[in-house]
Structures are given as structure tokens and as C-alpha cells.
């Protein structure tokens, strides 16, 4: 009952005013941080006002009639049933109101469709079930990363208390500078996904084989959290989009750190790794990429995802397993489903994950270790 009264009261408050309630907003759009999001917010507020007025007027008439024109209070029925004048009036007047509603929206449509002259262009690629960000043009050009949910499984399954940003936290945030026009190119690798950040008023489907675009200019530094909004299979609910908006200086520093990291990664891929190093890194890579289907236990799911513990592929030659990971494969249980190709992962991550599966859960494959150089050679 507490919930109910709170929601009804809150609803009334939300409908009657454009005041933004506590953060994150519960009854209304999240507080806007771009001009488009603010325009949308205002459009919605004015729509709600118009609707409220019409609602009260129309149903005021209805409830008055229900109150007064009842048989039980002795009201006798009139027999009128036609009036061309009235019909014309209630066709024309709503039409004018409706066009009045749509007209201010026209400018906003043109605004959000205008993706010209960006300061930074980033390609967002939807994968089942993570996002990939490639910085195409502007400061940070060349940076490339995958962004995967970091909420641990035990929180999802209720074995641990849920964190503050439950389901809306990732390993690598899409990082952008404040006040700059960022153009997002969306595409997808497998099925349709949709890129959405509520605070930015940005939503654009990511369609495999096609590139679409959208844009935002964040006005405030901070971390903004959204998620994929187009049903994209099993883990549709588990592929958040987290954007980190930094000041110009901090952004420049971030770009520099990414560049060093990528040089480091290149060195990593070139050198020989020990088994312990590979196992440690592989466990992480497995947990963030493979465990969604093959399960943390390596047991897979009956009739859906093959077990890796005791798997013939894992026990077989390393090159076959690497090729399978790079290229994906047709479903074992369902001819139409498939394991998606994982070629967007780095050589090091693939080598580590493969090594991990070859030695975990009682597997003892020969060779036990796969080096990043072997993955590079297999591409």
C-alpha cells in the first residue's frame, strides 16, 4: 500500500509539473544533459499539459453526465442523435490542436537528425552481448575497445547484495569530451541492437550490415548509464552502455593513457607468456566473454550451449580451437543458431581464454598453452 500511494501521488506530481525529482528520476525522463534531450523533455511536458486539459474536459463531461443523467435519479432520455455542426466542430478543433502538437516537434526532429560537423566520431558496434567502440575521427582516433558488463554473476543470481550500478556497469566506458559534438555511427555484428543513453536523448538502432548515425553534445561531465534497447537474444538485458564525459584536459590525458596501453598491448601480443599469466588473464576473459553461454562452470546448458569441460574440441589440436573461436561455428544443438565469431577480441585475450579452457575444470589438453603469436598467425 505504501508503494501504491507513493506511485499514485508521485504520478500526479510528475504529471502536473516539470520539476525533476530525485536522481535518478523515477517518474520522468532522466535529467537531460544535451540540448536534444532537453527539447524532448520540454515537448513531453507541454504534451502532458495539453493532454491533462483535454482529459479533464472530456471526462469532466462524462462523469457529469454519469452523475446527472441516470435513470436512478429520474432523468428522462432525450432522443437527439445527430448534428452536423457539432461533428464538424469536433473534427476541425482536434485537428488544429494535433497539428499544434506536432509542429514544435518538427524542429527537434531536424535538430536530432543533423549529424554534420562532428568534433569526434566513434563507431559503436553491437555484439551479442557487448558493445565495441572504435574512435574513427577526432581526438583519440585509433582507440578501440570492447565494453562488457562487469556485474558479477552472484549479484544477478541473488547470492550477493546488488551493487549501486547493478547491470549498468562495464569494464571499458565510452569516454568522450564535454561540450564537443560526438557523432556515433552504429552498426552490429550479428543481430539488431540499439544504442541508448537516456540523458542524451540518443537512441539509434545498430543494424548488421548497415551503418546509421546519431549525435550528442554532453553539457556536463559525469557518468551516464543506458543499455541496449532492441531485443537481441538471450543476454539482451545484460549489455549496458556507460558513457564517461570528461573535461577537455582529462579527456586528453585519457587519450594519452589509452595510447600507452595500446602500445603495451602490442608488446604483450609479441612476447612469450607464462602459463600462470595466461591462466590469470584467461579466467577474466572467459568470465566476461564466454561464460554467458558456456557457463562459469564450463558445463554449458543442456540442449543449448555445449560444455567445454571434457569437450573434444578443447582437448584437440590448439589450432582447431583457435580457428573455431576466431570464426565461430554453426550451432551444435540448433542448426540455425551459432556461436558468434570472436575475432574482435585481442590476440592476447583469445590466447589466454583458450589456454584457460584447456586447463580448467579438469581439462588437460596438449599443448596446454597457446601464445598470442599463435592466434595472430591463425587470423
Amino acid at each position, binding site marked *: 500500500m505504501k508503494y501504491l500511494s507513493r*506511485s499514485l501521488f508521485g504520478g500526479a506530481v510528475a504529471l502536473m509539473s516539470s520539476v525533476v525529482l530525485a536522481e535518478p528520476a523515477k517518474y520522468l525522463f532522466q535529467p537531460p544533459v544535451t540540448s536534444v534531450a532537453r527539447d524532448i523533455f520540454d515537448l*513531453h511536458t507541454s504534451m502532458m499539459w495539453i493532454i491533462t486539459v483535454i482529459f479533464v474536459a472530456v471526462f469532466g463531461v462524462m462523469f457529469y453526465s454519469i452523475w446527472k443523467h441516470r435513470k436512478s435519479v429520474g432523468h428522462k432520455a432525450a432522443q437527439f442523435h445527430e448534428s452536423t455542426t457539432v461533428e464538424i466542430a469536433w473534427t476541425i478543433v482536434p485537428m488544429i490542436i494535433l497539428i499544434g502538437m506536432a509542429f514544435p516537434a518538427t524542429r527537434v526532429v531536424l535538430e536530432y537528425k543533423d549529424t554534420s560537423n562532428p568534433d569526434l566520431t566513434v563507431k559503436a558496434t553491437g555484439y551479442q552481448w557487448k558493445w565495441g567502440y572504435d574512435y574513427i575521427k577526432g581526438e583519440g582516433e585509433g582507440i578501440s575497445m570492447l565494453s562488457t558488463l562487469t556485474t558479477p554473476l552472484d549479484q544477478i543470481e541473488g547470492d550477493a547484495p*546488488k551493487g549501486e550500478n*547493478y*547491470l549498468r556497469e562495464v569494464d571499458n566506458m565510452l569516454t568522450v569530451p564535454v561540450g564537443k559534438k560526438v557523432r556515433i555511427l552504429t552498426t552490429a555484428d550479428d543481430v539488431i541492437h540499439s544504442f541508448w543513453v537516456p540523458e542524451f*536523448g540518443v537512441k539509434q538502432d545498430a543494424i548488421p550490415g548497415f551503418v*546509421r548515425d546519431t549525435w550528442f553534445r554532453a553539457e556536463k561531465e559525469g557518468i551516464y548509464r543506458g543499455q541496449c534497447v532492441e531485443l537481441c537474444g538471450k543476454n539482451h538485458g545484460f549489455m549496458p552502455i556507460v558513457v564517461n564525459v570528461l573535461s577537455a584536459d582529462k579527456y586528453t590525458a585519457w587519450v594519452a593513457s589509452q595510447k600507452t596501453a595500446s602500445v603495451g598491448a602490442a608488446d604483450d601480443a609479441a612476447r612469450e607468456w607464462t602459463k600462470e599469466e595466461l591462466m590469470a588473464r584467461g579466467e577474466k576473459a572467459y568470465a566476461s566473454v564466454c561464460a554467458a553461454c558456456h557457463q562459469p562452470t564450463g558445463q554449458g546448458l543442456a540442449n543449448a550451449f555445449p560444455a567445454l569441460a571434457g569437450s573434444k574440441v578443447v582437448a584437440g589440436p590448439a589450432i582447431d580451437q583457435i580457428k573455431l573461436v576466431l570464426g565461430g561455428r554453426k550451432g551444435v544443438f540448433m542448426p540455425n543458431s551459432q556461436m558468434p565469431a570472436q575475432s574482435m577480441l585481442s590476440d592476447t585475450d583469445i590466447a589466454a581464454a583458450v589456454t584457460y579452457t584447456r586447463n580448467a575444470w579438469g581439462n588437460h589438453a596438449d599443448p596446454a598453452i597457446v601464445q598470442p603469436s599463435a592466434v595472430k598467425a591463425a587470423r
Partner: protein
Amino acid sequence: MSQTTAATVAHANDHALDHGDHAHGHHPTGLMRWLTTTNHKDIGTMYLWFSFTMFLMGGVLALGIRAELFKPGLQLWHPEFFNQLTTMHGIIMVFGAIMPAFVGFANWLVPIQIGAPDMAFARMNNWSFWLLPPAALLLVISFFVPGGATAGGWTLYAPLTSQMGPGMDLAIFALHILGASSIMGSINIVVTILNMRAPGMTMMKMPMFVWTWLITAYLLIAVMPVLAGAITMTLTDRHFGTSFFNAAGGGDPVMYQHVFWFFGHPEVYIMILPAFGIVSHVIPAFARKPLFGYSSMVYATSSIAILSFIVWAHHMFVVGMPAAGVLFFMYATVLIAVPTGVKVFNWLATMWRGSMTFETPMLFAVGFLFVFTMGGFTGLVCAIAPIDLQIQDTYYVVAHFHYVLVAGSLFALFSGTYFWLPKWTGHMYNEAMGKTHFWLSLIFFNITFFPMHFLGLAGMPRRIPDYATQFADFNMIASIGAFGFGFSQLIFLAGVVKCIRGGEKATAQVWEGAEGLEWTLPSPAPYHSFEVPPQVK
């Protein structure tokens, strides 16, 4: 001109009464009666029971969804099974419950409202119905094949559908069969209405329910083949190497959405126009006053049907259309609110200065008017493209279409059932049970779906098995409401069964203010009616 037919039924009834009900003797009995029947009343009854069964089945799936969403975290189902629940709930409710329910009404009512002895193609009518159970069976079986039922959403968007197991193929076959049934049913209804009206019943004297079904039938004939095309292309993409919707082979996944919604938007009106028809009978009857603006109702219904063909891409505002496309579909969509508004105003004008009573059918009709209009308003909010940018694919949309499909179509179906049940069974239903059913449905419906507006605005996507913790409160409220709503429907079942078994004897007129040919027949309506057509003045 009066909209309801002031009919003189000089002789037809006595004639029908002479026959008695099942007194012919050469009719098969038991199961064979129902398998072989060509009687529109039997077939209507079967349609209604079938759709109610599917309604319960779809309802159980919905409760599975709401149980999982009761609190954050994964409690009951794997995400894959959760997706099967949302998908099959949608398919079963749309194609198994709502559409066949309206066809059931059409079967029962169209002949007795236009003074015809039966439907035009009685054998095809039998076949239209008996296609449904096998289709339903395919849908049920699909849960038990490897990979389970299809989990691509009821809209079956490509290319996700190519990843599904054999459950997807079963759903495609089921939809083909249901589509064939709908097309046959529609042809039957069109031919019956155009050719078999009683002498004197001109088009502009037809009851509103007949009008709305005539227009709906045309919509069905126009768009069911489009759906069949879309899912057939999906099928060949899956198995025969075509690439209609596969970009890697030169196809376009968005093309699927265009084709699907070219079917899907008129489909929305297929599910609501007959509801408008029902309400247009109930409100005048209980206001004891003729329907206001009969001809404007006819024109409004036709305009809605025509406009429904040019608004489909408002379901696709975020696929990335050019600005000109967005603007066209936005303006076309808001225009639909004009004829819809006209209908609402006409119903209000019908109530105005009437002499109203509020038996269960009227309660559901007024409930429909009130809550459906709220769904209309949120539809308007969704139509404004920039706002839709924020609420597309969120719970706001889920709230919106449940306001129009549950409070709209379903409430109208309940209203119609209580209204005509005495005519069908010969007994009055239990008024207290009916009223309890109404109030519980109305209250629980709003507890379930009103909070979803807030969830959507605040950013909760639809079709997710688990959600961020800030959405927890409203999800819990919605889940409680859903279970209340679900169990309230058992009152309806009990009320209908009780009414079939007995109860106060219904008169021919049943309702003081009811008008139309069906009320000239005795209650229950005889097995064969209007073998000699009545004269309509």
C-alpha cells in the same frame, strides 16, 4: 435516419420457434456435432471458448513474466526462457485470443443482426474454426522442441529469427494457418454482410458492429497475406539460403520491419474496430438513447482504416529514417487521433442527457471509454517522433499498448459478452459477479500497467529479464497487479459457466434500451433463425 433498425419481424420468429432447438433429429450429436457443425451459432461458441482458452494460456505466460520481474535479479527462469515467455505471450494473445474472440462475436452476431439465416459459406466457416486448434497445438508443442519456443519477440524481427531453433518454424507454420483461417473468416463475413442483409436493411441502416466488422474484414484480407509474405521470407532465409533480410547476402534486416509493420499497424485496428462496434451497441442501450452521429461513426471508422495503411513506420522511428520520413509518419500518425476522437465524442454525446443505468456491460463500456482513451493519449505521446526517441522499446510502449489492447479490446469483449450472453444462453448472468469482475479488472489493470509509464520514462527497456535496481518498486507493484488481474478473470469464467447452466430466464428484449434484429429473436436465440428474412423499414 435512425441508426438502429426499427424492424418489423412479422413471422420469422414463430417459424424459428416451430423448429425448436436441436429438434431436427438428423443432426449429429456429441463431439461429431461440434466437429461437423456448419451452424454459425455453434461455430461462434467454439471460437469464443477457443479464444478464452488461449487467453488463459497467454495469461499464464504473462504471469511467468511478471513473477520473474517481481524483483531484480534472475529468480525463476533462464533469460532465454524469459524471452520465450514474452514472445509467446504476445503471439498467443494477439493471434489466439483477441482476433478469434472477435471472429466469434462476428459469427454469433452478424447473421442475427442483419436478419440472415446463417453465414454465407457455412462449410468454410467450419473449416476456418477447425484450423485454429492445430495452430494452437503447434504453438504449444514449440515449447518442447530443442531450443524451445521462438524467443525473437512477437514481432519476429530478422535477423534474430535466423538464430532460433525449430520452435521458430513451428510458430511460422502456426501463423500461416491462423492467417489462412482469418482470411477465410473475413471473406465469409464480407460476403455475408454484402449479400445476405434482410430486405430494407441498406448499408447505412446496418448496426455499427456489422459496419466495423465489414471494415475489419477488408483490413484482414489486405494485410494477412503481407504477414504471410514476411514470415515466409524468414522461413526461406532460415532454411533455403535466401537473403531477404540478411545483409551479408545483399538483403536488409530493416526491410523485414517495413513489411511486418505494413501488416502490423492495420492489425492494431483489426483488434480495436470491432471493439468500437460492440461499445456502439452497449452505450446506446444503457443510455436508452440512439447512438449519436451514426453516419459520422461510419466515416470515422473508414478513415481510421484507410489511415492505418500510411503510418506503419511510426513503429520504426529509431531505425534511422531520413528526417522527411520521420516527419511524414509523425504527421500521418497524429491525424489518426482525429477520427478516433470523433468516435469518443460521439459516445459521450450518446450518454449525454440519456437515462443511464450501469449493469455490467455498461460498466465495461464506460471503463473502456475511460481507460482506452488514456491509451489513446499515450499513443499521441508516442506519435511525437522526438518523444518516441526516448520511449521507443521501453515500458512506456508496453503500458501504451496494454491500455489499448486490454482496456480497449478486452474490456469491449467483456462488455459484449455480458451484453449478449442472455441472448446466447437464455439466462441472465449473475450481476454481482459481473460487477465484481469489472471492478477488480479495472483496479488491477491500472495497478499493473499505470506504473509501467513511469518505468518507461525513467528508462527501463522492455523484454529484459532483469533490471537496474531503481526500477524495483514499480515492477513489484506491476507484478502484484498482474496476479490480481489474472485471478479476477476466473470470476468471469465462473459467471459465464453459471449463466450457461441456469439462472433467471432472459426475455427476448433482455435490455430495456437494446435495439436491433437480434432482440426480436427469443432468448436463447433458436438454432435456426431468420429462415424467412424479416422486413426492415
